């Protein structure tokens, strides 16, 4: 009986590193699965990226606030419907309309938002509802403000890409797909058993904060470690905007990691729990039964009971003694 075949692939997509590991499949099957991953991610990016002027999302955002309905791509419709659902479930903490606020704070790189007809775009929309009207029969959308697919778009892209890859792999093969810190796993890992996933230290360093075991599911992390810049007021800001205040979330947390069966919802809950803040994240995550890890501003790692059950290693703490 020969050794288990493990195939690694890597490239760049969605502005991040895209990696895949296939276990227990012939090289040809693994290559075919990788090709499907790349093609599927490209399709998602072409539809959901706000960094491409010709994407379906950019075209939809151009109609924001004009009251018109627009028949959209299936993936964009799913993204909008998921965003609207996430807005409801998170009490408004997940809101794609923070895009205008991000731009007002100086985060550029995406397609410049068009001015509204009256030239008075509100950079901090706090209207009632998600601002996304849907017509499922026509698969049409009408939005009040430009929306950002953000992490949700990446989570959905991972969902679809992993599904496409699995459809080309033999039953029992293991698969890991990773894009910019979001991970989807299924099947056996190279050493047999569950996949071992590290949680990055947001303050740097090679050693993870903790290591978990996950047999199947998805992991996403929201962190202030990246996408930080100096805002127009000269203060450091980051991309995790709290829709309730219009300002970067400042709840005493550096990073939140969530495990969920679906990568899109792992993204939603990691961001919503980050914005819940250090005081509320524990009770909310426990009440929802989520496996969540969070790192406070002082570097302390905490987790829910479900996360504790999945954690196999935790970075030892430095003990300090006073004289």
């Amino acid at each position, binding site marked *: 009986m020969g050794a288990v075949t493990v195939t690694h692939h890597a490239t760049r997509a969605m*502005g*991040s*590193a895209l*990696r895949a*590991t296939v276990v227990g499949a012939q090289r040809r099957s693994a290559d075919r699965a990788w090709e499907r991953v790349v093609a599927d991610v490209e399709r998602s990016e072409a539809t959901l990226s706000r960094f491409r002027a010709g994407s379906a999302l950019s075209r939809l955002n151009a109609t924001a606030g004009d009251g018109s309905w627009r028949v959209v791509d299936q993936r964009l419709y799913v993204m909008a419907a998921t965003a609207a659902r996430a807005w409801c479930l998170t009490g408004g903490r997940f809101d794609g309309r923070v895009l205008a606020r991000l731009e007002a704070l100086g985060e550029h790189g995406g397609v410049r938002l068009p001015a509204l007809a009256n030239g008075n775009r509100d950079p901090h929309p706090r209207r009632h509802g998600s601002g996304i009207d849907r017509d499922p029969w026509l698969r049409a959308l009408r939005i009040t403000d430009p929306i950002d697919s953000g*992490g949700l778009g*990446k989570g959905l892209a991972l969902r679809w890409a992993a599904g496409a890859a699995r459809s080309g792999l033999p039953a029992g093969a293991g698969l*890991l797909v*990773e894009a*910019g*810190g*979001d*991970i989807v*796993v299924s099947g056996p*890992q*190279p050493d047999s058993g569950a*996949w*071992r*996933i*590290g*949680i*990055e230290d*947001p303050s740097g360093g090679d*050693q*993870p904060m903790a*290591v978990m075991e996950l047999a199947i599911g998805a*992991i*996403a*992390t*929201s*962190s*202030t*470690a*990246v*996408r930080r810049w100096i805002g127009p007021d000269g203060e450091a800001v980051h*991309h995790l905007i709290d829709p309730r205040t219009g300002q970067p979330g400042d709840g005493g947390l550096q*990073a939140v*990691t969530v495990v969920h069966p679906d990568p899109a919802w792992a*993204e939603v809950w*990691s*961001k919503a729990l980050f914005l819940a803040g250090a005081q509320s994240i524990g009770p909310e995550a426990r009440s929802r039964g989520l496996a969540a890890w969070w790192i406070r501003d002082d570097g302390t790692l905490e987790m829910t009971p479900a996360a504790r059950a999945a954690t*196999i*290693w935790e*970075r*030892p703490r*430095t*003990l*300090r*003694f*006073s*004289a």
Partner: protein
Amino acid sequence: MAAAKKAPLHVPIALGVTAGLYAISLAGVAGLQHQADTALAATRQPLADAVSGLARERASLEANLQATVAALNAASAAYGTTLNGSAALDASVVALAAQVQAATGAAAHVPTGAARLPSAPRVVTVVVTAPSTQATTGASGKP
């Protein structure tokens, strides 16, 4: 013979009438005396009641006084016991002082600087290497 001289009849009658008048007068005087005695007894009754109450209060006061005396005796006995304990404590303190003095004297003979103990570390870091992982989750959108 001379005829027997008969006593006059009015004499006994007079005696009887006199005795009757006397009896009536005596009865009247006795009745008046009884009324006077009853009135006097009624007048003196509150005074008698007050005297009885005073007697009872005195008995109660006497009982309290006896109880107080008993308590004082008990407190006195306890104080005596405490005094005995204090005396024993004083003796122990004196003995301890003697031992401390002896120990201090012995310490003075210990050479200084001959034996240096290593200083205790104030920061302890336990280095444990993380197990190998297949991937690491980090900031969403990490390039």
